[in-house]
């Protein structure tokens, strides 16, 4: 299209600051004299921030263990070997023993990590039905097309929850045991499995379908669980506030990760004696080994991590701030040199004019 400004009147133009392009204006100039102090100030501030961030990141402890069982001698390799053929044997379990020489400062969070798992694959990422998950009765029995091939079960029943994401729900489970003294009994460390999902996801976005006769099982009648699941969705937990679509493990899993290596929160340790952290002593993590990862060359890890105001251990931000801050200072000096050297020449030029 062409906009042509044709035949505009040849009348006396308006004399306003706008039409005459003479609006009062601030005319900043990015010259060395302004940039120099700016660079130094920013550099100092960044270095300060960076130091703080680096320290607080360093104060965070992390303990991780690869329990995939392919390489190390851990007893998980039996389970791993058992899964080689395809579906893992039910209830294969293994354990990870470790000891803490000192208090693991809390609050401690328990994560699992998967590698080489592409939750951000496009076809995988869209393979879900948010309407179904929000508890709409109509959507429950009529899942969206995107869920295919996990839309209808072999028997022709609609899958609830449908889609690849739900189907591949992580189903290993962990329990942590603490031995205060050597030889003493292992005491189970209470794991808080609530509050691991976003509040809004748990309370707003994910809803169970309306109960039928007060029963969630009846509400899901006529649907099939995803093919890989051993139990229907309403039996994910015995707690009525943590079962069905609002099971927190499920909700956490449904928030797809950004990168192929990702962690998801499994539990928080903050109850009883463990609210301050994990006291020193020997520990045992009992792992129910269900989830096959060797098929796609992935690994499974379990991580204990403490948390600060800035989240988990991540030295990147602190280092980046330090680097950028020092770069600013360095450039500031370069500029200062240039400024001093070329200032005189500039003035000479002005004199020439």
């Amino acid at each position, binding site marked *: *299209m062409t*906009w042509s400004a044709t035949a505009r009147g040849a009348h*006396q133009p308006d004399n306003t600051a706008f039409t005459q392009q003479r609006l009062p204006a601030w005319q900043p100039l990015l010259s060395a004299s302004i940039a120099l102090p700016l660079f130094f100030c920013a550099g100092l501030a960044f270095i300060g921030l960076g130091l703080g961030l680096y320290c607080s990141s360093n104060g965070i402890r992390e303990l991780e263990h690869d329990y995939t069982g392919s390489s190390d001698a851990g007893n998980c390799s039996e389970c791993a070997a058992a899964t080689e053929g395809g579906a893992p044997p039910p209830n294969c379990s293994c354990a990870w023993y470790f000891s803490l020489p000192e208090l693991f400062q809390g609050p401690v969070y328990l994560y699992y990590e998967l590698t080489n798992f592409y939750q951000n*694959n496009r*076809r995988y990422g869209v393979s879900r039905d948010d309407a179904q998950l929000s508890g709409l009765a109509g959507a429950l029995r009529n899942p969206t097309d995107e869920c295919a091939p996990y839309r209808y079960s072999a028997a022709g029943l609609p899958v609830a929850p449908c889609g690849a994401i739900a189907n591949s729900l992580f189903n290993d489970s962990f329990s942590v045991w603490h031995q205060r003294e050597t030889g003493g009994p292992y005491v189970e460390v209470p794991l808080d499995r609530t509050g691991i999902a976003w509040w809004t996801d748990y309370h707003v976005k994910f809803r169970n379908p309306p109960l039928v006769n007060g029963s969630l099982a009846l509400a899901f009648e006529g649907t099939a669980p995803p093919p890989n699941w051993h139990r229907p969705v309403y039996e994910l937990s015995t707690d009525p506030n943590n079962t069905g679509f609002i099971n927190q493990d499920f909700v956490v899993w449904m928030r797809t990760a950004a990168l192929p290596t990702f962690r998801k929160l499994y539990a928080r340790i903050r109850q009883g004696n463990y609210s301050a952290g994990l006291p020193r002593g020997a520990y045992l993590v009992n792992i129910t080994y269900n989830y096959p990862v060797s098929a796609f060359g992935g690994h499974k890890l379990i991580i204990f991590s403490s948390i600060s105001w800035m989240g988990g251990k991540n030295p990147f931000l602190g280092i980046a701030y330090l680097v950028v801050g020092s770069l600013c200072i360095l450039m500031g000096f370069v500029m200062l040199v240039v400024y001093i050297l070329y200032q005189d020449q500039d003035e000479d030029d002005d004199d020439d004019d």
Partner: protein
Amino acid sequence: MSCILRQLLTLSSFPQCAGEENWVDSRTIYVGHREPPPGTEAYIPQRYPDNRIVSSKYTFWNFIPKNLFEQFRRIANFYFLIIFLVQLIIDTPTSPVTSGLPLFFVITVTAIKQGYEDWLRHKADNAMNQCPVHFIQHGKLVRKQSRKLRVGDIVMVKENETFPCDLIFLSSSRGDGTCHVTTASLDGESSHKTHHAVQDTKGFHTEEEIEGLHATVECEQPQPDLYKFVGRINVYNDLNDPVVRPLGSENLLLRGATLKNTEKIFGVAIYTGMETKMALNYQSKSQKRSAVEKSMNVFLIVYLCILISKALINTVLKYVWQSEPFRDEPWYNQKTESERQRNLFLRAFTDFLAFMVLFNYIIPVSMYVTVEMQKFLGSYFITWDEDMFDEDTGEGPLVNTSDLNEELGQVEYVFTDKTGTLTENNMEFKECCIEGHVYVPHVVCNGQVVPDSSGIDMIDSSPGVSSREREELFFRALCLCHTVQVKDDDNMDGPRMSPDSGKSCVYISSSPDEVALVEGVQRGLAVTRIQYCADQGGFRNCPHFFFRFELLEILSFDSVRRRMSVIVKSATGEIYLFCKGADSSIFPRVIEGKVDQIRSRVERNAVEGLRTLCVAYKRLIPEEYEGICKLLQATKVALQDREKKLAEAYEQIEKDLILLGATAVEDRLQEKAADTIEALQKAGIKVWVLTGDKMETAAATCYACKLFRRNTQLLELTTKKIEEQSLHDVLFELSKTVLRCSGSLTRDNFSGLSADMQDYGLIIDGAALSLIMKPREDGSSSNYRELFLEICRNCSAVLCCRMAPLQKAQIVKLIKLSKEHPITLAIGDGANDVSMILEAHVGHPPWASVIGKEGRQAARNSDYAIPKFKHLKKMLLVHGHFYYIRISELVQYFFYKNVCFIFPQFLYQFFCGFSQQTLYDTAYLTLYNISFTSLPILLYSLMEQHVSIDTLKRDPSLYRDIAKNALLRWRVFIYWTFLGLFDALVFFFGAYFMFENTTVTNNGQIFGNWTFGMLVFTVMVFTVTLKLALDTHYWTWINHFVIWGSLLFYIVFSLLWGGIIWPFLNYQRMYYVFIQMLSSGPAWLAVVLLVTVSLLPDVLKKVLCRQLWPTATERVQAKNQCLSVEQSTIFMLSQTSSSLSF
């Protein structure tokens, strides 16, 4: 009569032997639809269109398909349509809405605009087609709608009505069969032109009489040239043979012209509706593309290549990566049966298309809209500019096309007309020289016109008796040999009041020289009135002396002959031919008279910058006249090559003249012309003056307006010099002179403009130019052209004198097509400049024109029209500079921000298994270019002033900083692209390392992929907006409002978009993502860090470049900064006292 009949005989035999094809190109019209008497040739009746004018493009029914078709012919729209269709057909990462919605928006807005314009055209058409017209039907006057008019109808038109179609003028209410017409709405000439009725029909004054007319008109088929018409009329009467009369453009009344000063006329319709000359001339201007637009298209192609290669790379990598089956189809993400069975190549192809769709945003749909909005809105600043408003004429600048605004900042050559452009075209009679004696009007006394003391004083000794006679003849010639008309009516538009206030009569002529001469003579000889009483034969009288002359013939002026003549018969029966014209065209035809004395006087006057005309006469004996009459009649009835034959006839008649004398008329320079030219030259623009004047006059003007300065070494390439040496030698000699210094010039190039550099000025005349341009048999002409161009390139100023209008166009073309393809601007005010202006038009340079006295034809044909030459300075140096700066930033920034936008998507493919996963949500993909980042750049491109207006005016050399498309060179483009790539890398990997393997909230919860994208997007929007803020040098409150406002809008939108479960969406992936991100401290720190890192290199580059290699502009900026600190208080005061207001 016998003479006419003899002519007829030769004529009637002529067409038959001239061949049939000549008749195919003509049409025959039965006047009043009456068949010619039997026995005449049988004509094949032709079908003519009715008199409906259709300027509208669409009808109600075809609007949608036709408009859509036209819109999708634009490459960009078509591209987005293809993307949209691909999205509809195959499974793509983004929904069709993301490209469909913006495309729909753009298409709809355009369609509405075009539909509205077309509706207006329909309305105008209807008004025109339905306006009542008076027909003659069966001897009665009938009123009908204009559209019902047919070829052959006899039409009556009253005073001040416009002609409803092209008419052959049959008769008028004026006894002499003339009428006056103004063609202001056709070609902009507001002067009154006289048209003549056909001799044999001008007696038919009433409807009944005209009904009795029995005639046929033969004429050529319609052609668009307004000033050419050839035809003839056969008038049948019962008694004699049919009478054949020639018809020329003086018999043709054009649709669109208005009848003036004549009560009513009758005419027969020959061209109707879309065949009228007006309709044939009505055509939309061809699309002109500016250099910026060309660069933009090249960049687009580069980006298209980048896009395709990105998609290709990803597709290939995808299949390489997927070659392991557990990656192609891991157990957790199985394919459907139909997907498995799809052909591999089909799959790869759809994947390729999907990647294309994913990355298609790199070519932004909104760029075209923004660029066009910028041009459209930006051009208002020109029309609004008070400095370019001329109080005297009440005219402001006109922008006829806004497509070329930025080209005004790129002009390298300015071709200017002299008369009326550099000079006022306000002529004053200065002196005359009769037989070598000089006479000056005795009216100027201390600069005041003394009305009483009229008379022409002689400077020289009193002349003898023979001189007395010559003197009388001279003044008679001046009184008679012109085309000036006298207007009785004082209230005409554009009158030129005679200073003789006793009797107010107004002279109107197409040539201001003639008016000046006639007025001068009137004042000088105390002639109260010079009237051109058009009577039966045509009379001219000077009532004071009561000379009566019968006007026999006018050999009218044309720019090729450069002279005009009249043949008059005095009361005593003597027949004279008076000829007036340029000295070069008169002297060769003179056989008697004091040629040398007059020539020297003429040359002296010319050096002083006066316009000179020579006057000659010859006495004709009746036999001679008879011969002339025959000759003219023969040529005038010719259907073919009439122009050429006429010119030959004139050549034959105007010879063996006796020289009477010469006149000198002063044309003052326009105010500030010198200042403007100086500024343009300082700005590195080469100014060429193209004029029809003689060399000495033109050179004097050039000195006066400082085109040539004292130290300018003049090189002459004139006929005189070529006569002495051969063209070859002259050219080589000149080039040697010029190139000798250009060696040092190249050395000096880096240090800029050294003031002492030898200036060269070239003077070339029309004859020499045509020698250079003439193609030679041995094909070596291009050599001369190259040599000539080489010389011109090294001259700071060029004066081309004695130029015919076509040669002006040739010169412009020559420069325009030379190997550097410089941007040329032609400026002129009159009809003779139009060809030059139109030539400059072809190769996309802009051209401007001065709204001048010679009518507004140039103004209507121009891209820009300015009231005075001095306004060119602000037009180019300020507006052009601003537009160029603005649009180049606009273009570069658009590409930059889309690299920032899309490159992270590309990087993300490496981390999501090449699955075309988008990084951003659909809404953000759609709105990024439409709303988050669109307004700040649009506003920047309207408001930015990197240097103040006054500085630009004061320091023209700043124009050199942007010459040769400096801001859109590859180097700059690559810098911007790499900046975009760097920024994209920073955004993506910054977010990547932030999210890698850890949580960033203090409650241990984990973010997903949408938060990752949101972080990248937020950093991006802030970076891109702040980058523009860094580039903004002129922060008005509007800039603050828009820049901070658009960031605020982004935040508010994100809060809203994520804060609500939107019921119309089938996915809720963005729910609370943004708010969750804001709840994380490290996310805030990351935004600050990444924005800083992204902007750092640009800041560093700016500061270092400013310090190390400052451009002239940057020096001025810095200097102003220092000054403004000191002067800020004063400035504040003046701000408050000035009348500026919002």
